[in-house]
């Protein structure tokens, strides 16, 4: 299948007073048309910054290097004015917090229609009509009335639906959803995931779903990328990673996630703390917390390399099947 996004050697760093934080390091991956890629990892592992950098939305002190190609278009380093031709149109983003991500002083309809006015050259009336249709599409009851509301008059779930509608207005090729359900309660979460599934399918949009929640991953994603300390440590098809994780961190994430099928089993949290980006250990960044470590892990950093079959990659020197070994231990 065709790749809609091709990331190579993406690095993101932030200038601090007299030092630098390297939040994302040497990221390489591609996103295929219409697929759903889940990006998982602990807080601070660089998930958001990777994609904010592609959208040109890094904080003032942030800088991205490397390459992110959307077709022939190189997004990294593109001046904002040029980026504005693509963001909102071909590549859209939904943010973590629906409560604060809509402008409190503008009516919903304005915040939707402006996207179409800008990118499709619609007049206000046509844009409004389309916006209301899209609100209906994402399951907002009496959309005309809601379109006239201000964000504070809507519930969190409704606002997130509005955000989804807003992102999909131009039928983007790529949709990046940064923890779109974390702030919502569980029943709403499930509805939201259904919505993502059906809409991205209908529009042929490739979805990047950034999340902490492996339940979400299992529900919507085709492939996944696990990040740790600013790097990708394991990538592959969701099923493969779930049934046969090959990076100890992936294994840790799985065993710390509740699983209804194995309710009797105790959850095992990953021991230790997430790494501080300023003081990453020598060798593999995960080595202080790893149950499978050996000498080499302290000396060399394992590169992300393909192994075995089915386009899997891992950044780990350990060769065995972790899940099986953990069970037998």
């Amino acid at each position, binding site marked *: 299948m065709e790749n809609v996004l091709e990331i190579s050697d993406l690095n993101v760093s932030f200038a601090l007073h007299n030092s630098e934080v390297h939040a994302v390091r040497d990221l390489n991956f591609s996103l295929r048309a219409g697929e759903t890629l889940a990006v998982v990892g602990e807080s601070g592992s660089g998930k958001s910054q990777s994609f904010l950098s592609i*959208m*040109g*939305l890094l904080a*003032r002190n942030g800088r991205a290097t490397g390459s992110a190609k959307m077709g022939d278009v190189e997004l990294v380093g593109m001046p*904002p*004015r040029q*980026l*504005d*031709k*693509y*963001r*909102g*149109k071909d590549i*859209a*983003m939904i*943010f973590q*917090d629906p409560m*604060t*991500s*809509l*402008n*409190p*002083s*503008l009516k919903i309809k*304005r915040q939707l229609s*402006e*996207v179409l006015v*800008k*990118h499709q050259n619609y007049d206000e009336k046509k844009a409004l009509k389309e916006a209301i249709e899209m609100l209906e599409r994402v399951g907002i009851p009496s959309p005309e009335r809601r379109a006239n509301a*201000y964000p*504070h008059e809507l519930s969190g779930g409704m606002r997130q639906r509005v*955000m989804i509608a*807003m992102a999909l207005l131009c039928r983007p090729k790529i949709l990046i959803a940064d923890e779109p359900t974390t702030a919502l309660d569980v029943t709403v979460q499930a509805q939201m995931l259904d919505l993502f599934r059906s809409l991205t399918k209908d529009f042929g949009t490739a979805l990047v779903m950034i999340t902490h929640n492996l339940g979400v991953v299992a529900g919507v994603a085709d492939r996944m990328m696990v990040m740790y300390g600013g790097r990708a440590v394991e990538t592959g098809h969701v099923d493969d990673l779930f049934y046969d994780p090959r990076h100890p961190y992936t294994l840790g994430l799985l065993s710390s996630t509740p699983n209804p099928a194995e309710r009797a089993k105790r959850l095992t949290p990953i021991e230790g703390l997430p790494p501080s980006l300023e003081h990453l250990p020598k060798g593999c960044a995960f080595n202080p917390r790893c149950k499978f470590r050996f000498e080499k892990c302290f000396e060399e950093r394992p590169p992300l390399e393909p192994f075995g079959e089915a386009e899997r990659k891992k950044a780990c020197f350990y060769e065995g099947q972790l899940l099986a070994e953990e069970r037998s231990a």
Partner: protein
Amino acid sequence: MLRYAFRRVLSALPIAFIAVTVCFFILRLAPGGPFDTGRPLPPNVLANVRAYYNLDQPLFTQYLLYIGGVLRGNLGPSMAFYDFNVSQLLAIGLPFTLTLGFSAFVIATFVGVLAGMVSAVYQNKWPDYVLVLAVMIGLVVPNFLMGALLQLWFGVYLRWLPAGGWVTGSITHLVLPVTVLAWPHAARISRLMRGSMIEVLGTNYVRTAKSKGLGSRLVLARHAIKPAMIPVVSYLGPGLSYLLTGSIVVEQIFGLPGIGRYFISAALNRDYGLVLGTTLFYMLLILVLNLIVDLVYAWLDPKVRYS
């Protein structure tokens, strides 16, 4: 909206009443009286004059008489300008004070908002530094010093502008007083605007607006200015009172015939009627302008609109 305005006007009335009452009694508590300066009057003349102005009545009766007069639209006689009553004096000074105050207010607000915005957008770059310097000057230099400096420089050395005085219809005579009056106001607004704009530019919803590819101009104009204006607008009310008190001094420095000048001489002469009348007038002005400010505020922040 109309009902809200009406309610606000109604609720302003008791405030005005209380303020007049407080002023009335404070003024009488101050030592001295209107006829203590200048040549002492013979006792029988003094008694006549006091009777004429009702000053021989018990204080509370005087108060009732005064309030009764005000309610009938009569602000009473002036005790220092014998040939005029207070309403006439206000009517003479009023157009002038309003012109001065209003132009300073509008210009300062506009300039302040603009400067604050530029400062925020160019945060920690040279346009920001230049503007922050101008703000500091406006904040620390008192208006009488600023007035004198500008008079000296533009009026005396360069001779670009008249150093003071007033010629009806002349804009050049307004330039320096308006500048002195507007500068500190603009400075405070600019500082507020800079802070709130920086905050707004860092919000999630501005990030959302950027992510939609709207372009920096639209992001600023449509998504950032309105919310960033909220603290500024809530300052405009109190800011206006600063400005009006400032105009009292500025009218004096530049020898301008506004009601500010009466206010000072009236206070010094214990011209009770004129002080109260001027106070009442300033107060009404502030109440009305605060009402306008509140209406703008409601427009800016939909959350307060219906409460």
